[in-house]
């Protein structure tokens, strides 16, 4: 170190000390995260990491965060969570459904540490859950797709046949059908949350079948790239805005926006009033964000979509409102009825009119 930078550093330290000392509060609270994917996946884990950083900024020095990425579900997750607890983290976010049992086990071992599990359903005194009503965004996508499709075929890349994904397929179909009675939905299962090669294959197959809209419940931009190649196919950004594909093929998006929730929960911890609860946020609470509807969408369709967003947001409309029948023709919801959250959370059937078969 040369003399000049030494002086500079010393001066800086002295200034910091002078300014910092009088207001020096307690040590910042440590908050940890585990991610199932790499933070660079540009989808699910990336959005959680964006929110983590926003939280750290918003709470300005009261919290410090750290994370472990690419954590396989199972015993490795249990170790990673234990590691975070042993490192002195007071609040730990486990950000994938598959971390559920591991989080339950570790939460039982560390009763003084608070845990938050995304998209699961098991809670404890020190274990809260949180999830987003992604199906609200699907209703918007279904409306736009139903209005704009020329082939009347909408392609859907499903990840796994679990309730969250099934809710999305149903919501998209119901709202497309509402504005376009001739519409059909074709579903391809990728059996992965993030696999660019498989997603590209799925998109290519759907385009070959004549779909001119591709909705995806997978996180990579591979389907967007396929749609761009095809030229006449539209898509929606998934998890993140995927703004690189604006204004077309990506004509809008559903954005996972965890930051308001993370900030609220961290603030509660700092204030000492954190409580275990189950949160299921939607467009209204900002957990589900709808990305810009681009100029590729006709103005009247855009207005219709925005009206729907407003109705969902203020709670005056539920995307699953009866009359609705199940795929097998049996009754599900009577006229004007909406499902209980508990029922939606375990949804395991398609609605009437979807021809795709539920994988067994």
């Amino acid at each position, binding site marked *: 170190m040369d003399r000049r930078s030494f002086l500079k550093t010393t001066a800086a330290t002295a200034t910091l000390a002078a300014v910092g000392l009088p207001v020096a509060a307690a040590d910042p609270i440590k908050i*940890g995260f585990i991610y199932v994917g*790499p*933070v660079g996946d540009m989808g699910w884990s990336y959005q959680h990491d964006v929110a983590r950083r926003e939280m750290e900024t918003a709470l300005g020095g009261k919290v410090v965060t*750290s*994370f*472990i*990425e*690419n*954590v*396989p*579900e*199972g*015993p*490795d997750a*249990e*170790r*990673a969570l*234990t*590691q*975070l607890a*042993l*490192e002195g983290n007071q609040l730990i976010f486990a950000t994938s*459904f*598959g971390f559920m*049992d591991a989080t339950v*086990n570790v939460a039982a071992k560390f009763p003084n540490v608070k845990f938050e599990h995304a998209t699961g*359903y098991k809670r404890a005194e020190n274990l809260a859950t949180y999830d987003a009503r992604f199906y609200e965004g699907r209703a918007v996508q279904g409306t736009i797709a139903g209005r704009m499709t020329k082939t009347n075929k909408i392609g859907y890349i499903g990840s*796994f*046949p*679990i*309730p969250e994904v099934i809710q999305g397929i149903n919501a998209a179909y119901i709202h497309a059908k509402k504005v376009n009675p001739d519409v059909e939905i074709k579903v391809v299962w990728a*059996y992965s949350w993030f696999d660019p090669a498989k997603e590209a294959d799925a998109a290519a197959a759907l385009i070959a079948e004549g779909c001119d809209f591709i909705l995806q419940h997978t996180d990579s931009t591979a389907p967007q790239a396929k749609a761009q190649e095809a030229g006449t196919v539209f898509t929606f950004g998934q998890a993140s805005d995927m703004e690189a594909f604006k204004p077309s093929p990506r004509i809008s998006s559903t954005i996972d926006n965890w930051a308001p929730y993370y900030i609220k929960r961290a603030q509660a911890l700092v204030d000492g009033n954190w409580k275990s609860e189950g949160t299921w946020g939607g467009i209204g609470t900002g957990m589900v964000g709808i990305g810009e509807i681009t100029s590729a969408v006709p103005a009247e369709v855009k207005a219709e979509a925005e009206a729907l967003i407003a109705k969902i947001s203020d709670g005056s409309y539920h995307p699953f409102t009866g009359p609705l029948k199940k795929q097998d023709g049996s009754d599900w919801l009577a006229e004007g009825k909406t499902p209980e959250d508990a029922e939606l*959370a*375990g*949804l*395991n059937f398609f609605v009437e009119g979807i021809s795709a078969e539920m*994988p*067994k």
Partner: protein
Amino acid sequence: MITLVKRPMPSRFWSFTTPVLAVIATMIAGGVLFAILGKDPVAAIKVIFYDPLFGPNAAYFRGQLLVKAGPLILIAAGLAVGFRAGIWNIGAEGQYIIGALAGASVALAAFPAESHWLFPAMVVAGALGGWIWGMIPAVLRVLFGTSEILVSLMLVYVAQSFLAWAAFGPLKNPEGYGFPGSRNLQQYPSAHNPELIAGTGMHWGVVAAFVAVIATYVLMSRHIAGFRIRVAGEAPRAARFAGVLPAKLVMFCLGLSGALAGLAGMFEVAGPSGQITDSFNAGYGFTAIIVAFLGRLNAIGILLAGLLMALTYIGGDMAQLMLGLPTAAIQVFQGMLLFFLLGFDLLTQYRLRVGKGSK
């Protein structure tokens, strides 16, 4: 000018020294990598190799070392026997999955009955499942001369599809709100493979791994079958003259490694993992191949290599957490280990001669 001269006999000295050299070279190259990423290389190496063993929370991580190393050692011990005979089972990952599925199926079929016989029955089912999955490439090779390398590898993908099918279908927890994944066997006392002594990480799978190490050691160095296996690998023609039947050998090696991989999967699903999910397999079957080679295909070597590999995983997670190293850097680091090992392996087969090359 440096030339390579083939040694008449593989060097014993180098075959013990190269793994150590490979580890040291990995530390140096890894340190350079970490430094380029702007992290203190010495701190990173310390976090990966020292902290899990002697750091502030070492008591917990030492136990986790056994949890992580157990399946690696159990699988690698079986693979090494085949590799010594020149029989290449690349599909341990698939055998691991099928073993877990078989073991879990037995438990879930019996649920919720409690019986002392259940766990032993699961052990048998797990071994049998892996054995069957290993016998497919064996039988195909014996009957039709197919490559066991390709067949066993392809069967991994078949096994993965089976796993997804089971997790979403027949083995799905009926009380799981429609979510995929089986019941958690950790909450089913008769089927649970618990920690034998709290906090040690020791479960029946780790015990089985130690037994497998001892048994394969005895087999390979004290038993006539081990001699035949070694001869078959080193001098296949001579082995045939000595009456070693290639068909029998292929079936024995693939069956044994399959059964041990199946056992590993079964102990994992009944213990640390607890449930069948579509992402249940965490790559143990493939990593075990690295462990087998790192351990010089020798039982004791595999024991040490398995522990070392587990250390890089656990230390790698710690480095992510404490230094913010990206996981890709940790994976490159683990890859370097095999790369350097294979590179330095040259020294056991060849002698370096510095000077003018004699044509």
